[in-house]
């Protein structure tokens, strides 16, 4: 299988402070790639660099075999869609408006959508089950609904890679699973690559086929969930003891952070 993303010896810094340091990894097409690590490890910065929102200083970054710096803004947006951590709702866009914005990188100079653009948006909304919310304003939706709108927008962009920054933070368990199942289904049906930053180690273990642990702007471990999610590697990166055993639901590791009183 070909590589969707190749990163080699990448550095990113503000003045003397390194945000990303000597990062190297590959993501294969169709991977569900999960990046974990403590706060401030540089996970979100890495996503921003991959999406082209932030520039890196040193190293090499390739998207489907093409150097990222040689890809035009608009073409990059056709390859990579981002589901960001925060979505501003200061202006009263409807769900339909918002999803349709995903067509932007595919539109001409005047930015008018054609019938096929609208069909693609409708399919994306059907896929994330928000078609019935089409006329609602974003600001009155619940957190789970809003997240599904943003994912529909990303899908509507018809990307080859989707970057998700903590898509399940602040959602209840049922919505967490719903969002993750959506992404998993989309990845399978469209052979899309998913790269997700998450703090939820169990979701990472259950959905990811490759896991990367970051700490202080560097890659600590990278591999299959069973190899990477071990108590010693987790303790080294997070600095707290986590109990790891086999999950009762299947062949995935189960991670339990252990509070002081149970140690």
């Amino acid at each position, binding site marked *: 299988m070909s590589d969707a993303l190749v990163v080699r010896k990448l550095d990113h810094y503000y003045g003397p402070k390194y945000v990303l340091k000597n990062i190297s990894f590959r993501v294969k097409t169709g991977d569900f790639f999960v990046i974990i690590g403590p706060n401030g490890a540089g996970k979100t910065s890495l996503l*921003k660099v991959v*999406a*082209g*929102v932030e520039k890196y200083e040193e190293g090499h970054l390739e998207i489907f075999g093409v150097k990222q710096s040689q890809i035009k*803004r*608009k*073409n*990059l*947006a*056709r390859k*990579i*869609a*981002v589901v*960001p951590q*925060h*979505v*501003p709702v*200061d*202006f*009263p*866009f*409807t*769900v*339909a*408006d918002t999803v*349709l*914005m*995903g067509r*932007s*990188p595919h*539109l001409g*100079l*005047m*930015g*008018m*959508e054609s*019938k096929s653009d*609208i069909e693609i*948006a*409708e399919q994306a909304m059907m896929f994330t089950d928000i*078609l*019935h919310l*089409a*006329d609602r304003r974003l600001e009155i939706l619940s957190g789970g609904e809003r997240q599904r709108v943003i994912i529909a927008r990303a899908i509507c*962009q018809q990307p080859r890679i989707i970057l998700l920054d903590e898509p399940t933070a602040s959602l209840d368990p049922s919505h967490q699973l719903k969002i993750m199942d959506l992404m998993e289904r989309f990845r399978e049906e469209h052979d899309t690559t998913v790269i997700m930053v998450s703090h939820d180690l169990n979701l990472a273990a259950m959905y990811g086929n490759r896991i990367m642990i970051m700490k202080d702007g560097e890659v600590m471990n990278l591999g299959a969930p069973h190899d990477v999610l071990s108590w010693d590697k987790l303790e080294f990166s997070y600095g707290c003891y986590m109990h790891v055993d086999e999950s009762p639901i299947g062949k995935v590791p189960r991670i339990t952070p252990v509070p002081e009183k149970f140690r």
Partner: protein
Amino acid sequence: MKSSFSSVLPKISLVSLLLGFLLVAAGVVGISFGPSGWNIHEAIEILLSGAGDQTSVNATIIWQIRLPRVILAAVVGATLSLGGLVFQALLRNPLAEPYILGVSGGSAIGAIIGIITGLSAFPGVFLTAFAGSMCVLACIYLLAVGVAGRYAMNRESLLLAGVMINAFCSAVIMFLISITKSTQIHSILFWMMGDFSIFTREQIPLLSVVIPCFILIFVMARPMNLFLLGRETASTMGINVGLSFTILLIVSSFMVSVIVGQAGLVGFVGLVIPHINRLVFGPDHRVLVPACILGGAAYMVFCDILARVLPSQGEMPVGIITAIIGAPLFIFLLWRGRR
């Protein structure tokens, strides 16, 4: 369900048609009104018979005085409304107005200096006012780039820089007024309230520089939609954020400066018109740009009629009318929006 996806083109046409009609109606009424009462029938007849036939006194009045005046009002209203709309999108703040970056303060200082030194209203005071606002914009640009470092011009630093420069300018304005002869204070005050009465026909060609600005802003309506999602998201959706931001900032500031130089500080239009349009037509800028141009123009022509007709003698600065209508209307809109 289909209705939520209705294509945007018919909506743009419908809104343009509706507000265009409103503008034409306001224009005809504006041309018919004068100190000698109003005669809509005669006004239409004179307009239809063409500009060549100016034998009667009334025809001369309409072609030489009232029509240019209505055109000025329309262009001022359109430009300030559109300027407000652009700044609201750029600063992602629905309460931003076209003067927010200090254009008002800078051009007021320029205009006052022009008035004190006894320059004519046009081109003298226009040029000093325009130069004043350009100086302020240059300052803002340098400041914002400097403050924000390599992520040039984030919206918070722009906003703060604008507020501070306006505050500084008002101190200078007060100083200039305090050393001014009392005969000139009247002109200064009228200028600062927005005054159309000193407008002459010769200024009309200069107004046309706003048209390319309008077109450029309409082309960039879709990037403006994406700006509302935040700069980083806009960037991940294929927008060259730095370039679009700079173009919109410069183009809108430029056209507002041209207008302020000619008409003085007409307040509230740039705040109220985009806000009402957003309430009625939704937040899509591809609809809002034409809606603000036409709606703002119609609103200003209407306010100008009031400014000419209400006082029993002479006329009052149109800025008084826009503020008297605009401020309560705005509070009402805020109050309604809360519910």
